[in-house]
């Protein structure tokens, strides 16, 4: 009897010798005459357990991890590929984790967008359909364009790239433009440090992105879509292209979609290592084959976007949420979350933690609770000290702020951003002035150069922080830095210059507190 074994082929698994694990499993299976079918799924998002190997048993999938290439012989010795759940020898293996679905890290989550991640073969159309795939599309094909847009509006879905703009309103704007060439563009330029949710979805469940974009096309009357993918994601590139080819081959993309009179074409375009191209207008310039210079708004991309045509630009996760909303109804989605932050957000726990990974939960839990429930302390064993939330343009938060509910409005109220849900933990060895300096340095490196506060302000910022760190007129220079930050916030054309001051000012504030604590303790002795 054939046993199905799952070993992911996502970036994280491959980065931790996952390919060698898969190869060793094949070799050992051949040697021992074990009849297996090896499925290369995506990751479940429990990255500390990767490479996570799963076996289909009569009671569900059981997991072993983290598996290294040298563990394979002992797994075969323990008869791990036995589909009988009651098999004692497998349960006694040191890497045995029990039923995958019962692992607390996974069980405690509310998975909507990531329900299929790690479960299915990411490029297998039949597997996707078996797990409710293309149901949202089937419903959309029966609806009017306006009815689809209304569903999205009613769900309360807000853009998941960081800016949290209501997705339904954006779609309505594009729908309201007279019929002409319109485009659907997916922003898959996930450049924020500490974020990997887009990548995980593209590598684990790319067809949900394809389906979400196709529904968007039906909703606004577009016939061509592009996924703008960062070049730092070579594995996602491979998997996306395979998934798209399979969707074409099965008539879920192309002309006469699913036998209807509608058509939608989709292509992946690679970025080239520019963080600024995650900004939507810069992304559009780049897609047009130009330098990624930010455009002034208005006109909005919804009205004059790609090649001057009406364009929906949404993040991977926004499109990924769409099939679910159309299939289950707007209300079920809106019932998750709190206040104006509806649905779920995949939090990404990263940096100095033992159990980093993706945790999809309804909005509203606190940072402290999230880390207590999932992170399992720091790798270094030292206390957590400051946490950067929302990527390189997000504030550093110190412990007294960790009780803030994780939703867009509560974060905005304390001068922080939830952004794309990335959470980077630092221990108490962090030099916050160095982090502040890095934020400015990053802005120097990544500024598109179009507006002065960002292009020049960041250079001046690096210099001023250097002076403060060297004890050169620190009080006056701190004042100068505040002034500079205000100018950048008020006068920059986009979030690059306009938000770089968030990490800078929060880090400098914490740095000053750290300094005065040290001075107090020196005086105390």
């Amino acid at each position, binding site marked *: 009897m054939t046993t199905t074994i799952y070993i992911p082929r996502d*970036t*994280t698994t*491959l*980065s*931790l010798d996952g390919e060698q694990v898969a190869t060793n499993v094949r070799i050992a299976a051949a040697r021992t005459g074990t009849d297996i079918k090896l499925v290369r799924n995506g990751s479940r998002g429990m*990255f*500390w357990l*990767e490479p996570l190997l799963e076996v289909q048993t009569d009671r569900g999938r059981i997991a072993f991890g983290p598996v290294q290439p040298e563990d394979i012989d002992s797994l075969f010795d323990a008869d791990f590929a036995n589909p009988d759940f009651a098999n004692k020898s497998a349960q006694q293996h040191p890497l045995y984790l029990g039923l995958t679905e019962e692992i607390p890290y996974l069980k405690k989550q509310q998975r909507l967008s990531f329900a299929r991640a790690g479960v299915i073969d990411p490029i297998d159309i039949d597997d996707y359909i078996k797990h409710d795939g293309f149901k949202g599309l089937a419903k959309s094909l029966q609806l009017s364009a306006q009815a689809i847009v209304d569903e999205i509006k009613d769900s309360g879905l807000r853009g998941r790239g960081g800016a949290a703009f209501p997705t339904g309103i954006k779609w309505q704007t594009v729908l309201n433009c007279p019929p002409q060439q319109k485009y659907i563009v997916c922003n898959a330029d*996930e*450049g*924020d*440090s*500490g*974020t*990997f949710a*887009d*990548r995980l979805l593209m590598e684990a469940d790319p067809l949900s992105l394809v389906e979400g974009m196709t529904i968007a096309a039906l909703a606004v009357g577009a016939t061509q879509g592009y996924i703008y993918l960062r*070049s*730092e*994601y*070579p*594995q996602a590139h491979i998997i996306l292209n395979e998934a798209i080819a399979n969707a074409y081959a099965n008539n879920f993309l192309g002309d006469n979609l699913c036998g209807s009179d509608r058509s939608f074409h989709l292509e992946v*375009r*690679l*970025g*080239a*290592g*520019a*963080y600024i191209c995650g900004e939507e207008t810069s992304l559009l310039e*780049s*897609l*047009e*084959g*130009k*330098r*990624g210079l930010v455009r002034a708004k208005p006109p909005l991309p919804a009205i004059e976007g790609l*090649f001057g045509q009406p364009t929906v630009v949404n993040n991977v996760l926004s499109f990924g949420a769409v099939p679910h909303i159309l299939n289950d109804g707007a209300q079920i989605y809106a019932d998750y979350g709190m206040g104006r932050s509806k649905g779920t957000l995949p939090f*990404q*726990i*990263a*940096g*100095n*933690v033992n159990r*980093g*990974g993706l945790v999809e939960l309804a909005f509203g839990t606190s940072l402290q609770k999230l880390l207590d429930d999932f992170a399992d302390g720091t*790798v270094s064993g030292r206390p957590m000290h400051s946490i*950067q939330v929302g990527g*390189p343009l997000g504030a550093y938060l110190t412990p007294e702020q960790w009780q803030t509910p994780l939703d867009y409005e509560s974060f905005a109220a304390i001068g922080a951003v939830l952004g794309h849900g*990335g959470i*980077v*933990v*630092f*221990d108490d060895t*962090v030099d916050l002035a160095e*982090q502040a300096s*890095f934020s400015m340095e*990053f802005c120097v*490196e*990544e500024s*598109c150069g179009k507006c002065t506060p960002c292009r020049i302000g960041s250079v001046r910022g690096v210099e001023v922080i250097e002076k403060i760190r060297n004890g050169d007129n620190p009080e006056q220079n701190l004042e100068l830095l505040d002034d500079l930050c205000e100018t950048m916030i008020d006068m920059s054309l986009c979030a690059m210059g306009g938000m770089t001051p968030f990490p800078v000012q929060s880090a400098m504030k914490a740095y000053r507190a750290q300094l005065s604590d040290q001075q107090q303790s020196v005086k105390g002795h």
Partner: protein
Amino acid sequence: MDATSARANEKIQEIIAELIDKPGALLPILHEIQHAFGYIPAQAIPRIGDALKQTAAEIHGVISFYRHFHTSKGGSHRIEICRAEACQARGARALESHAKQTLQVDYHQTTADRNISLDPVYCLGNCACGPNIRIDDDIIGRVSPEKFDRLVDGLNTVSLQIR
């Protein structure tokens, strides 16, 4: 492919001809040329410009905007070290200085034996398993200085071909 070979210009024209009809064809063309040669050779620039009805300066302006594109031949392998915050929190700064010292180069430079080019990168999206590096198209996680040395040794080992 060697950019000085007789076939090089032919290859460049083939790539341009294949992609020119795509809307916004410039980035796809540049990616394909870099994929073929390891960098964008100088002779490609006016040819792309002619095809797209743009000046060589405009094409060069686009190339220089993007960190991923290179206009000179690098080493046989390219190592990128993630400098971003999530990797910093897990020891990337120590790894950076170790790498520069071991390879005896700074960022944007190539080792004396022309085997390895070193570049910074800002996030490889593997932020729970840093510090991360990319060697050519492989991303590698939890890279300690010792693991880095082992990986470099692997790149420096010349395999013998038996004919």
